[in-house]
């Protein structure tokens, strides 16, 4: 198994991580992350896939039958312990560098 490079932490990726940290026990779909973080879909999905591939997030399909509910299934993302630790470290590092509490919303 090849170790994939850790994702670069941009402003948008920190906002996405912040959205997950704000609701640590809840699994979020891409649409919910979009609403909470305000990150545009064009940036959001590549970020989610990179985090997923790096092992920071896990993802799984919603456990419903699309025919029964009459809509496509959602894919839910959840922070892994590694992802949570990296996200905390990254946000703390940015807060330290800016020298003040940073608001991400």
């Amino acid at each position, binding site marked *: 198994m090849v170790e994939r*490079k850790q994702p670069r932490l941009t402003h948008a990726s920190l906002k996405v991580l912040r959205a997950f940290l704000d609701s640590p026990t809840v699994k979020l779909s891409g649409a919910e992350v979009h609403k909470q973080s305000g990150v545009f879909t064009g940036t*959001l*999905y*590549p970020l989610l896939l990179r985090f997923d591939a790096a092992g920071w997030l896990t993802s799984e399909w919603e456990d419903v039958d699309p025919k029964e509910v009459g809509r*496509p299934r959602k894919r839910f993302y959840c922070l892994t312990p590694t992802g949570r630790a990296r996200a905390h470290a990254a946000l703390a590092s940015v807060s330290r560098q800016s020298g003040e509490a940073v608001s991400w919303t």
Partner: protein
Amino acid sequence: MDVIWWVTAAIGAIAGNLIASELFAWGPRLSERLMCGAVRRLAPEMQERLREEWAGHLQTIPPGLWRIVAAAGFYVATHQINIALRVWERQENPEETTLQEKASGKIEGTILNVNVGMTKSAVLNAYVSRYAKIEGKGWVLIPDPRDEPEPQSTRRSSQDR
């Protein structure tokens, strides 16, 4: 002068209303077409997953301009996702995908492809990818050195720091 202003405002209001109602009527179909077009541009292994995921995302947005904007965003996402997939593929099979092997022909030219996006807080994100046109092989993505897997020794030493 006041008359011209009022006439212009009235025409603008009517045109805006017409455009809004057209967008509302065409929104679902247009956004679905945009999403399907974006999915077709994806690498085959990701198409099935993201078609369902993105269709689910669009369902959560009320019909109208924002649904179209979200669907247009998927177009931007496909480019970034395809680049990421190529980088991962190169990391897993480095001997097959080095530029030196691809560039066994004459380089006829290079281009820069710049994607610019802006987040809600007006922070500009720019992604620059470089392509080289290789004789007999077409356009080839030039790997970004920052995306290359670091040698084991370098990775260890950077962690130590």
